[in-house]
């Protein structure tokens, strides 16, 4: 799905000489999920993705998070979202942090956000055998990408190791 979307967004941008708007990108993923429905009903290829984008139509550009159900319905998340089998375990932590924590997820800097996300993955993997988890001692880290108005930045395993240090 990521490859289909990447190709179609880039194709649109180059051929039409303008970028596809964020709402159109959100709907494009919803359409893909709907088209995948027969496979989902057969138990093959169930996907519940998260979609993050930067809305460039407002100033300053605003980050937006969307989550989906397998039928293709899209929901706008306000500050955070989690998906996958381990998400149930950590959603309550996210909710707690968002309501009572300091800082809240939307107020975290990069170091805090990476630390928080990696620790959540460690917790999730303890309660859910299908969550891969993170093991800093074995240099096993997650795939983390940071979305900014200027583009997408990859946070390498080495960097994650550094950011995880207190």
């Amino acid at each position, binding site marked *: 799905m990521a490859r289909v979307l990447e190709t179609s967004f880039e194709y649109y941008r180059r051929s039409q000489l303008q970028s596809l708007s964020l709402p159109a990108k959100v709907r494009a993923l919803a359409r893909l999920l709907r088209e995948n429905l027969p496979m989902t009903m057969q138990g093959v290829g169930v996907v519940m993705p998260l979609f993050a984008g930067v809305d460039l139509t407002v100033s300053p550009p605003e980050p937006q998070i969307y989550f989906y159900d397998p039928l293709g319905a899209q929901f706008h998340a306000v500050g955070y979202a989690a998906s996958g089998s381990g998400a149930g375990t950590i959603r309550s932590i996210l909710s707690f942090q968002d309501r009572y924590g300091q800082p809240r997820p939307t107020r975290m800097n990069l170091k805090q956000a990476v630390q928080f996300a990696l620790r959540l993955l460690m917790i999730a993997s303890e309660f859910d055998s299908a969550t891969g988890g993170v093991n800093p001692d074995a240099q096993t880290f997650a795939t983390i990408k940071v979305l900014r108005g200027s*583009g997408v*930045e990859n946070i390498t395993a080495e960097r994650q190791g550094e950011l995880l240090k207190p």
Partner: protein
Amino acid sequence: MTEEPYRWLEAIGNRREYVREQLKGGSPVFATASPDGILLLGVGTGHSKVFELFDRHALAGLGHPADIEKIRQAAIDAAHLEAFNRAPEDVSLRRLIGFGLSPQLKTNFEQIFSAPFLLELLLAEVGLEPGQDLIARLHFDGAFQLNTKGVVVAASQPEAETSARTWLNQKLTGKTDRGEITETVLQAWWCLMENKSFNDGLPPEAERRDGWRKAVNGRSVEIGWLARKGNRRARYEELTPAQLGL
């Protein structure tokens, strides 16, 4: 029946003459390879001469806007299809032109009862190393030449094109600053537009500098930059003369 081959030759000759006549006065486009990347330049009306095709590929052309658009779309379609079916690394300019655009242009040119494409094109592919760059000069009849370095020009008159290219290659040898390259290329653009002879001595540099600045008034200098290195997969970037200090 015996005169048919002659009719064919005459028809093709007429067609070639017609295309050249239609392209007369067209604003030339340029591509220059440098150690940091490839710079494409044209003077038009904004998004009319220089375009991004794919991650490491760009196009610049002169001619009828509808024809440029057709070829641009065909190239973008082919590149994205190839990238999706295989991988982005498999998209190559040599194949795009050799198996896609060139045969399409040749077929169209030889179908004497349909309208010919009115265009002259430059296509560029930036490589990992300077020696791997490719700049293709693609003509309206499908003929093409591949170049791996230096400056390539597409203009409506073949003789003027060759002279401008020779002059630019001499002037730009060893130059790497994008602003300096753009300044020189724009001087060549002005000389071509004003039909100045590159062989019999050009106007002094001060006049050339002044000339292009006056001539681009009311037009848009379109500059495309294909960066050799970068974090993003798409290496194409649109630049303005102001960004280059001009």
